[in-house]
């Protein structure tokens, strides 16, 4: 990341109109968030007294709501800020890979998520760790998946705050000397978010996502129609981008980036796309969105129409190049160049204040939706797979919901303190690591959907190897300009030597260790855990009864005297 210090930080003016629009939209969204507690409640009692109600919105979201919810959940504010920022500073390899990533994502979702939905519906699983625990009969494996999910999600929440911060900075708030006053708007935004998430659970982000997505589509469509013609067409824009990215970096003497990747980065490009796509639906917040749908096929139908968001993301990425041509100057309050300000600044410079306000509000609200879902998903993991599994096995649904609500507050305040108290770059580093880490839960979750071949302890060992290798490799990447560690997510693959995404290297090792150890443990006759699921569960749809109901019925039907031998 370039940090050309200027002599004197320019004073930012507050754009009153844009700020007013942002505040009005923010207040409207907050009201909507609180009202969401009453939305689609049906016969459930007030107060959302179970995780199915609070944490999964009653498990009843249909196609439209799911489209908005998952769109708002997966394409986060940080994505909207970071992808154009990466395009603006280094070009295609670190920025535009987001498009193939979110394209190949959907065949993977189509393949896996209907099975996960079915088995979770039958057994009442709320989290991916619930499924792993039930499938392998291993609390250790379930704990490993839960902890990875929580740890990987926390920095992701923090980065949503970074997204809001970028908007506030461009609006001219957040300067000045007083540290508390500087962060006050951010604190207010998060307190409001925490309050309505606590009250309404998953229904709040689901309802807000509709508003946020419509605003984002509006902003991107208008920008992509108006801005290129205003700046002389895409030909001129790509010419300017080419010229900027070919300029050698003053420290390393190498070009800062490229508009079209050269042959040496082909493997980095596709492994980044594939690895990220495999990782995304291992994140607990994505799975929360899937399990909140009302039928087995809702997620498959959505996989057909969700790619529309990827098209929007592609256009948004191109705005990074538009900003190069437009000469946008993303100068932070301390006077340094901060690429994350590129898109908000582009809107503020080139549109009337009120429309810039709408676009900036869309980004800020876009941070609230995923932050809410992520905090719900992380607290569900804690409640189900740590609190219930290890601390209080007899916790009833009402107390689980109570614990989850409280933990969701803790998670959000943790993220807030993280962003205010620590350097932004540590949040970014941790999120990079989080992507590598969450990918290491893929073998346990995905293989489990199809086969019980892997041994539970082999999966635990594979996970551990993947985490250690991935972390060490990511630490060892040194930024050539700043000499800082965690300089990127690409490193030469062992044996091959070609640069690839570290997450994929670690994943391959993880899989190898899991497979070899499975053979060893089987040979040694180390016992498998008890599998609660059966083959028929993976094809169950919404009309099939839950396993609880099945077993109750079986008990009634069965005369005690004719019990078959077990």
């Amino acid at each position: 990341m370039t940090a050309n210090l200027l002599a004197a930080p320019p004073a930012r003016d507050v754009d009153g109109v844009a700020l007013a629009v942002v505040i009005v939209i923010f207040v409207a969204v907050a009201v909507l968030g609180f009202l969401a507690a009453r939305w689609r409640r049906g016969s459930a009692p007030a107060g959302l007294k179970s995780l199915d109600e609070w944490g999964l919105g009653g498990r009843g979201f249909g196609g439209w709501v799911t489209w908005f919810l998952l769109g708002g959940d997966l394409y986060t504010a940080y994505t909207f800020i970071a992808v154009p920022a990466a395009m603006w500073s280094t070009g295609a390899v670190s920025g535009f890979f987001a498009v193939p990533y979110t394209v190949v994502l959907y065949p993977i979702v189509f393949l896996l998520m209907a099975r996960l939905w079915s088995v979770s519906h039958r057994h009442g699983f709320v989290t991916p760790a619930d499924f792993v625990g039930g499938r392998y009969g291993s609390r250790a494996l379930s704990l490993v998946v839960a902890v990875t999910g929580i740890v990987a999600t926390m920095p992701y929440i923090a980065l949503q705050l970074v997204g809001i911060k970028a908007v506030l900075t461009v609006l001219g708030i957040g300067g000045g000397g007083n540290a508390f006053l500087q962060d006050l708007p951010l604190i207010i935004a998060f307190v409001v978010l925490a309050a309505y998430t606590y009250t309404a659970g998953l229904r709040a982000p689901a309802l807000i996502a509709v508003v946020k997505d419509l605003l984002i589509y509006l902003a991107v469509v208008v920008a992509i129609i108006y801005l290129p013609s205003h700046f002389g067409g895409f030909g001129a824009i790509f010419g300017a981008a080419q010229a900027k990215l070919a300029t050698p970096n003053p420290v390393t003497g190498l070009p800062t980036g490229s508009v079209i990747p050269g042959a040496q980065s082909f493997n980095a490009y596709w492994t980044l796309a594939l690895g990220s796509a495999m990782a995304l639906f291992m994140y607990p917040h994505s799975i929360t969105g899937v399990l909140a749908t009302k039928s087995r096929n809702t997620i498959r139908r959505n996989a057909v129409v969700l790619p529309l968001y990827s098209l929007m993301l592609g256009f948004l990425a191109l705005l990074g190049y538009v900003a190069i041509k437009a000469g946008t100057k993303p100068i932070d309050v301390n006077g340094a160049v901060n690429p994350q300000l590129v898109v908000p600044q582009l809107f503020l410079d080139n549109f009337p204040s009120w429309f810039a306000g709408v676009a900036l509000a869309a980004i800020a609200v876009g941070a609230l939706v995923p932050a809410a879902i992520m905090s719900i998903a992380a607290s569900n993991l804690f409640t189900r797979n740590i609190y219930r599994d290890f601390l209080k096995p007899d916790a009833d649904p009402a107390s689980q919901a109570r614990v989850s609500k409280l933990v969701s507050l803790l998670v959000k305040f943790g993220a807030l303190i993280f962003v205010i108290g620590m350097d932004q770059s540590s949040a970014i580093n941790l999120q990079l690591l989080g992507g590598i880490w969450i990918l290491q839960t893929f073998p346990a979750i995905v293989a489990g959907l199809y086969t019980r071949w892997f041994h539970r302890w082999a999966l635990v060992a594979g996970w551990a190897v993947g985490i250690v290798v991935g972390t060490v490799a990511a630490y060892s990447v040194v930024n050539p300009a700043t000499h800082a560690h965690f300089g990127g997510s690409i490193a030469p693959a062992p044996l091959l030597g070609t640069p690839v995404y570290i997450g994929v290297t670690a994943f391959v090792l993880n899989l190898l260790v899991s497979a070899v150890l499975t053979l060893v443990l089987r040979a040694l006759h180390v016992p498998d855990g008890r599998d609660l699921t059966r083959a028929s569960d993976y094809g169950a749809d919404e009309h099939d009864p839950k396993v609880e109901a099945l077993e109750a019925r079986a008990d009634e039907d069965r005369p005690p005297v004719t019990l078959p031998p077990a």
Partner: protein
Amino acid sequence: MSDEPPTRAPGRPGPYIVVGVLLAIGIAVPLIVPVYAHAEPTLIGLPFFYWYQMLWVFLDAGLLWICYGIVRREDRRRRDALRAPGAARGDRR
């Protein structure tokens, strides 16, 4: 654990093979970078590298739409076969 009662009648391999191939195409082809890592031909000023990848948004959506149709049809057949009155009770998956 026993597999009773089944939720669907046994599947036919054909539809699942077709869907598997289509999904594999949808995942693998957009990742073959050498095919599209060049500037020409441009489309309204966009280099090939950019518009080709964005085109795949539509191609993948189309592939998944076809897959959805095939899977839903076969899925319905399997459920109807099981739920229809007089369906073979001993059908095991």
